[in-house]
């Protein structure tokens, strides 16, 4: 009977991911240099949902594997959701403590690795220049950098522009001041109605007492 047969699609996907990481690292010499401090370390990421184990071997080039029976620097176990939150966290140490991820081994090198990859800054001009030449590649590079910068500022800018259009140009929505004024008006009207109701009740009671005497 065969032992658990490997998933060839997953093996191929891991190979593709490994190639992509090494491609990116080739064009970010700063990160590659910083990674040297972690050379020889092996990190195991054990995902419970979906079930998957991935070993990250810090080397030049970096290696990913699904099988490894040697010593591991840090083993982290959690769900895909937990790992995504950790990978994107501004404060990885805090995220690690507050998450459901369990860490076995040293956590310091793991946090260092997360920080290094967070600051990955790939020089896209170089691979493009290898194909289309230096000058056009520079133009494309400038375009890519502008697009990336724009994409970073897009969410707050876009929100401001949509608000402006809805309030001032199309007048589809009231401004915050208009809404506050309206809410105050409603509150005042509510109080006035309550007072009037109390006054009416008072008058009715007085009339009933006058009729009884």
């Amino acid at each position, binding site marked *: 009977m*065969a*032992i*658990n*047969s*490997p998933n*060839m699609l997953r*093996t*191929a996907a891991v*190979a593709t991911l490994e190639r992509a990481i090494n491609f990116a690292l080739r064009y970010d010499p700063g990160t590659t240099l910083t990674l040297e401090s972690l050379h020889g370390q092996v990190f195991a990421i054990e995902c419970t949902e979906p079930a998957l184990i991935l070993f990250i071997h810090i080397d030049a080039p970096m290696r990913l*594997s*699904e*099988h*490894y*029976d*040697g010593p591991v620097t840090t083993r982290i176990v959690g769900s895909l959701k937990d790992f995504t939150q950790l990978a994107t966290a501004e404060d990885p140490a805090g995220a690690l403590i507050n998450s459901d991820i369990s860490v076995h081994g040293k956590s310091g090198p793991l946090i260092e690795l997360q920080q290094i990859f967070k600051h990955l800054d790939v020089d896209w001009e170089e691979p493009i220049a290898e194909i289309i030449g230096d000058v056009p590649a520079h133009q494309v590079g400038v375009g890519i950098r502008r697009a990336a910068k724009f994409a970073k500022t897009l969410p707050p800018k876009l929100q401001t522009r949509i608000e402006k259009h809805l309030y001032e140009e199309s007048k589809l929505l009231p401004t915050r001041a208009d809404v506050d004024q309206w809410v105050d008006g409603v509150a005042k009207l509510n109080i006035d109605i309550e007072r009037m109701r109390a006054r009416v009740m008072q008058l009715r009671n007085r009339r009933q007492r006058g009729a009884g005497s």
Partner: protein
Amino acid sequence: MAEDKTTHFGYKTVNVEDKVGMVAGVFHSVAAKYDIMNDLMSAGIHRVWKRFTIEVSGVRKGNAVLDLAGGTGDLTAKFSRLVGPEGKVVLADINDSMIRVGRDKLTDLGVVGNVEYVQANAECLPFDDNSFDVVTIAFGLRNVTDKDAALRSILRVLKPGGRLLVLEFSHPENPMLQKAYDTYSFSILPKLGQLVAGDAESYQYLAESIRMHPDQETLKGMMQEAGFEQCDFYNMTGGIVALHKGTKP
């Protein structure tokens, strides 16, 4: 007069002493187009099978690795990086044409320094006892005339605790897949060989030799018989290919 011993060469029965020369003829013929044919025949999946083999091998820095029937050096290139300058990889093949293609390819890729090339018959390996941490034989064992002798020879050169990995075409588990695979092997494969390598016969032999190769359980038994322990196998792509592993006690 003593009777001539026979063995199989694909579906043909041939004299034992003739088989080595006939297999050599096949690989002399396909050596130049070997890599491109592998990609075409397997739609590139052979790279994934080899990657899995490397992962299971557990090769580390400083190890000595024997890549038997190493052919054009796919595994050797990866092992060379893993063992580092303090380790050693020996690419051995019985066929000088394959070694020449492999050596040129690896040298062009800059894979030098820790790689040696040896022309050797797997049945009587020219290495000291207990020399290697890992021995791999990928898509080579089915071409060996005396597989039991080859397994014993590998056991001898492995260090105690060393690992053998046999990556080889095998027998699909699913009968439907077997049928589709037979159609592909005997109808399409020889035509592909004719078109790309100009040699339909060699690829007809390839298909036949796969069918004549022992199935997964039989090969596992042969490894145990040769003296390996912790023998087991992984089926890949539905059993079209199997990876057997065993450890020298």
